[in-house]
């Protein structure tokens, strides 16, 4: 049944509806696949086979009884470990939450359950979503299925690797500066960051409240659209969620028509990118042009400040969001060495020192400083003003074009350890993806071919806020053109993973 794990979610949905396969068989096949390869890949921090199979059984029973089910009912999904799952350990990739079992489900989790998707487990990530390689996980890195000596991207490397390694047909990730899209590019998968507010943040362990957004991680654009429609929509528990209907993303993915579509290429993104990353991007643009799209160069001058603004706003908000990890109510509690009768403050400090990794500490200190008295205007205040300029650049660009395009990431997957000594070079991984988070606009990455090193590259599309459907329409069109050219999917070109005994 190995072909079961290689099918897309939409194909699996068809087979389930046609009773060609049961959800239990399907879920078990994935559990087996995880057992077979995850010892090497380490995409999962926690596998909940029992819970997933229970859901699968329930769906099979209800389907047999003739109940009308959601199209994705019975299709397994993996969830990034930054999203709370009731009764299932949730760590945000951090030792400070080791063993924490949430007493409540995130809204995203509730919607997956309501639609009947068996949740296979929780995927690995950079600690508290801070990173671009998953090397900053408190539980060890995830390996890229294309080359296990290389990173899968981050912070959502676990979700992307799980999907790329056929351990799950679907995954949910979160994207604060590219954490869904960049791993998508690194692993040859599709990743989408919806419009800010499009998917509820209730139950997402917060990194940067004004930037975080949950979204789909899949092997096809249509699958992403199907999953997007499950998790998106207004949530009264999230004051920042948009009170409007979910954009018609599935319809758009099926339409896949770019005739007359105006695509803007941002002049300020792309300089210094790995040469064949840019070449694959240009080739994809040419394909779209051949299908009737109009390619236009646009300028977004404020984008050159995006990285700097982001790395002030994010640490500032994170320094506040991570203050709750103080050993008083949950999580790791460590007494300071050699102190009799430590005070609460001393226990807080010792626990945070022991529980947080270096990158988290780095950003908390940076953010605390940026918000501190006398510096607010110079740092956080100024960064927010730059953010407004970036949003205005997007608005101006979208008056000329329907979508924007760029390579998703400056490089293909790099070897482990390559950028650990130079945080700034790691931060530069996000240069193409960050502007979208700052402005709240939606973005999608899909595979656009292999570089000469044999590693996947990504093509990024950006659309105006609430116009997520444009991403799926254009993305789906490009995907068809590319797969036609390749004679199959990109993942069909990935190396076969050896089963771990």
């Amino acid at each position, binding site marked *: 049944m190995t072909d079961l794990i290689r099918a897309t979610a939409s194909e699996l949905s068809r087979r389930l509806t046609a009773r060609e396969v049961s959800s239990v068989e399907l879920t078990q096949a994935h559990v087996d696949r995880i057992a077979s390869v995850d010892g090497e890949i380490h995409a999962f921090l926690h596998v909940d086979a029992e819970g997933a199979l229970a859901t699968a059984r329930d769906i099979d029973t209800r389907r047999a009884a003739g109940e009308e089910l959601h199209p994705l009912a019975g299709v397994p999904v993996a969830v990034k470990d930054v999203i709370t799952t009731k009764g299932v350990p949730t760590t945000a990739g951090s030792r400070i939450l080791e063993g924490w079992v949430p007493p409540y489900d995130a809204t995203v989790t509730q919607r997956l359950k309501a639609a009947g998707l068996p949740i296979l487990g929780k995927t690995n990530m950079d600690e508290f979503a801070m990173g671009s390689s998953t090397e900053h996980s408190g539980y060890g890195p995830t390996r890229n299925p294309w080359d296990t000596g290389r990173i899968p991207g981050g912070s959502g490397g676990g979700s992307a690797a799980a999907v790329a390694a056929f351990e799950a047909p679907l995954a949910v990730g979160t994207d604060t500066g590219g954490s869904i899209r960049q791993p998508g590019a690194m692993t040859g998968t599709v990743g989408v960051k919806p419009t800010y507010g499009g998917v509820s943040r209730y139950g997402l362990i917060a990194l940067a409240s004004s930037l975080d957004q949950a979204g789909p991680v899949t092997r096809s654009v249509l699958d992403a659209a199907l999953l997007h429609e499950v998790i998106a929509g207004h949530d009264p528990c999230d004051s920042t969620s948009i009170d409007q209907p979910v954009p018609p993303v599935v319809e758009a993915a099926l339409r896949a028509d770019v005739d007359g579509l105006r695509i803007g290429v941002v002049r300020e993104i792309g300089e210094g990118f790995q040469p064949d990353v840019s070449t694959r991007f240009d080739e994809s643009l040419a394909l779209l042009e051949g299908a009737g799209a109009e390619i236009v160069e646009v300028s977004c001058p404020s984008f050159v400040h995006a990285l700097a603004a982001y790395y002030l706003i994010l640490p500032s908000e994170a320094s506040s969001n991570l203050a709750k990890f103080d050993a008083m109510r949950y999580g790791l509690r460590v007494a300071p060495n050699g102190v009799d009768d430590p005070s609460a403050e001393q226990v807080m400090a010792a626990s945070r020192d022991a529980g947080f990794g270096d990158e988290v500490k780095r950003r908390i200190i940076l953010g605390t400083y940026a*918000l501190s008295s006398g510096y607010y205007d110079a740092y956080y205040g100024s960064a927010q003003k730059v953010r407004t300029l970036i949003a205005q650049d997007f608005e101006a660009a979208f008056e000329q074009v329907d979508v924007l395009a760029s390579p998703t990431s400056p490089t293909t997957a790099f070897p482990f350890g390559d950028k650990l000594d130079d945080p700034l070079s790691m931060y530069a991984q996000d240069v193409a993806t960050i502007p979208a988070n700052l402005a709240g606009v939606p973005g999608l990455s899909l595979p656009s071919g292999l570089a000469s090193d044999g590693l996947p590259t990504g093509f990024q599309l950006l659309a105006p806020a609430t116009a997520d459907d444009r991403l799926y329409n254009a993305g789906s069109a490009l995907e068809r053109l590319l797969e036609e050219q390749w004679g199959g999917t990109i993942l069909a070109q990935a190396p076969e993973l050896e089963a771990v005994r």
Partner: protein
Amino acid sequence: MTASQRATTLVDLDDALARYQPVMGLEVHIELNTASKMFCGCSTIFGADPNTQVCPVCLGLPGSLPVVNSTAVESAIRIGLALNCQIAAWCRFARKNYFYPDMPKNFQTSQYDEPIAYDGWTEVEVPTAEGVETFRIEIERAHMEEDTGKSLHVGGATGRIHGADHSLVDYNRAGIPLIEIVTKTIEVPGDKAAAVARAYVSHLRDLIGGLGVSDVRMDQGSLRCDVNLSLKPLGSDELGTRSETKNVNSFRSVERAATYEIRRHAAILDAGEKVVQETRHFHESDGSTSSGREKSDADDYRYFPEPDLAPIAPSRDW
């Protein structure tokens, strides 16, 4: 001998007032009587078993998000209007960041430079030897915020944190809506100062109680007052260093605390020393104040607008 019983030099009140002018600022916290908390649906009923009126939001569990209680906003506006304040056309919540175990998120969602109500006034009547005198108190601002949990310090002699073995925290109170009302500086004839302070708090009790938005009971903590006081030499414009006195749990205590601080500050200034800017604790037993726990890093709260909440923009009609 406890700290409060240790001899503190005090100047006779009339003597102090002959040479110094008291300048006061009163901060009053009103606990609203909404059915649910400021940012979640938990019950606010007083007296429940510890940690039974809590949820992921008011416990600050990872992933939780606040949702504004619209009745609390309405109550805040009512209070603002009753105090003749301007009501902000647009304002936001802000995070006040500091670490303390009774504060689940280690930040308090409050308001900083955009209070919902500002620039108001109210008149208080004080019975004096000459009959009833009316004083106008200028109101700087009234803003919305959430209350903290309650700590029970176990094992020490006084029930306070000094000398306690461990502390228990009850989060039932965490997240209950508070309105903080801050006066502009109050400068009235010295011999009336303490009485005016008392009358102001009592007047707020009547005014806000009349609105029906709070139980306003000092003995139950739904009306709290912090007394800020400094002295300046009579005839001088240069303000002195202030002290802030907390744990003032009755109207009479407001008057006693103000009086005590006038006498204590006068003694320090007479001796040529500097008043320490600090938070002091009021002792009901003898009307004295004592130095509170030192909060060295408490002053930089790193305020920034709360990104999890949308701005409040009440329409003028409403």
